[in-house]
């Protein structure tokens, strides 16, 4: 598929998700995955600011992206931090030339195989609420068209965050941000339970949550909450995506 048709199908899929299951973690994880497919990037992830202003991890397309996003939060440096603080996109930064700018982050990201990084702000009414991060293993700049498309997807992410609780009588942006970050913590707690109960890795535990969520058409946060509450057993989760129709679309 061409980039244009991939982006269009991504938008359609996200719009369906908004109407359908209303789970912000599902939506932002899907968005990260689709960025990798539709744009010339190798990993994508979303960070959101808590109502108190602390940047936190919410979704990523891969484990190494997740590790690097957490690393940025820990060390308080990197493209996402710069983008969030300034509210301005950070694009086409070659990591080989970024040692002065990010002395801790640049070598760490290179170790994970990345060579250029981009971070686009999620902005709403003058407030920056997070960042969409795109990392590439290739050297060289990203096409202008890809950057414009990525910023478009960042806007979609912002709308998703706003939208996903509109039907549940949400009162404020702060409440929606708090909800998204709480969902992520519930998922981490559930991952720990699944990893220990079934002796698997954390990324596999997440995969099982996601597969179950898809197969049963339930939000991933709902599935994770049931695991933490003990009303759903880790061993009863599905291991793979079982729905043939959904599989064909993927």
């Amino acid at each position, binding site marked *: 598929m061409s980039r244009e048709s991939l982006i269009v199908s991504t938008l359609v899929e996200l719009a369906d998700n908004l109407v359908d299951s209303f789970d912000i973690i599902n939506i932002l994880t899907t968005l990260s995955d689709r960025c990798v497919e539709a744009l010339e990037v190798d990993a994508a992830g979303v960070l959101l600011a*808590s109502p108190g*202003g602390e940047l936190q991890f919410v979704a990523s397309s891969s484990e190494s992206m997740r590790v690097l996003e*957490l690393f940025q939060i820990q060390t308080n440096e990197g493209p996402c931090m710069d983008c969030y603080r300034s509210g301005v996109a950070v694009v086409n930064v070659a990591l080989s030339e970024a040692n002065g700018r990010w002395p801790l982050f640049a070598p760490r990201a290179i170790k994970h195989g990345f060579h250029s990084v981009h971070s686009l702000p999620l902005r709403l009414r003058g407030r920056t609420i997070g960042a969409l991060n795109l990392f590439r293993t290739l050297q060289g700049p990203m096409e202008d068209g890809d950057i414009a498309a990525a910023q478009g997807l960042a806007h979609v992410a912002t709308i998703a965050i706003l939208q996903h609780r509109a039907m549940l009588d949400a009162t404020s942006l*702060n409440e929606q941000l708090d909800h998204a970050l709480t969902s992520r913590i*519930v998922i981490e*707690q559930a991952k*720990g339970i699944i990893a220990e109960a079934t002796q698997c890795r*954390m990324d596999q535990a997440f995969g099982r949550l996601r597969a179950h969520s898809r197969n049963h058409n339930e939000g991933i946060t709902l599935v994770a909450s049931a695991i933490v509450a003990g009303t759903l057993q880790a061993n009863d989760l599905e291991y793979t995506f079982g729905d043939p129709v959904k599989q064909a679309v993927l």
Partner: protein
Amino acid sequence: MSTERLIDIFTLMANHESEDPHGSSLCSVAKEITELSGAGISITSEDGGQEQLCASNDVAQGLLDLEMTFNEGPGHDASQNGTASEVSDLMGEGGQRWTFYSPEAVKLGARAVFGFPIHIGAVVFGALSLYRDSTGPLSEEQSSSAYLMASVIGRAVLVMQTGVPRGAIANELQGQSTFDFSVHQASGILSVQAKLSVKDALIMLRAHAFAVDISPSELAHRIIDRGTRFDFQSRVWLETDPKNREYEEYGN
């Protein structure tokens, strides 16, 4: 933004604790940081009941009492639903959702009330109840401060439940207001190993980190890497030396 506000919170807490070491520093700080008339904190006990932790003044105390008596109100809703609740005019339409609480709260002098959940993911610790003696919603700034305060209180309550002296709490909370993800994953792992709820596993993890004098996230990483585990049969913590993968007892 958050760093400055967190520093404000910790400075206020340190001041209040030195004045009144056994008192209600968390509530006083919550009231000041949100610029409202008063604050109260209720804690959800294991059987689902509510206990009062503190209140910043008599009105706030009275409001907590009303919530317990009638089993309704902003804190009750916040801890039940896991989301914030707000009634910006108790005598208006919004106040009708609490048939018994609202008129009594007005008699005490409250005109607007707000509830924020105190939780760490799926683990609910209680609620922060705030009131103002005039009507009106919270500004975005005030609601940001209330959320930040609720996350600091969440960690403070966790620390209290591990049994450390209260004077040590402000010191303990320095840094970020929330845990890094390893702590959440590790409390999930530990809940399976020790056959506990995630809430008790989190308290146990925090207590053990104290006992062996390492940070919660360092202990969490060891648990995730399977270097440290809790043995349910013998009720002891075991540690593996990576060189010989046999578990050794330590630091119970």
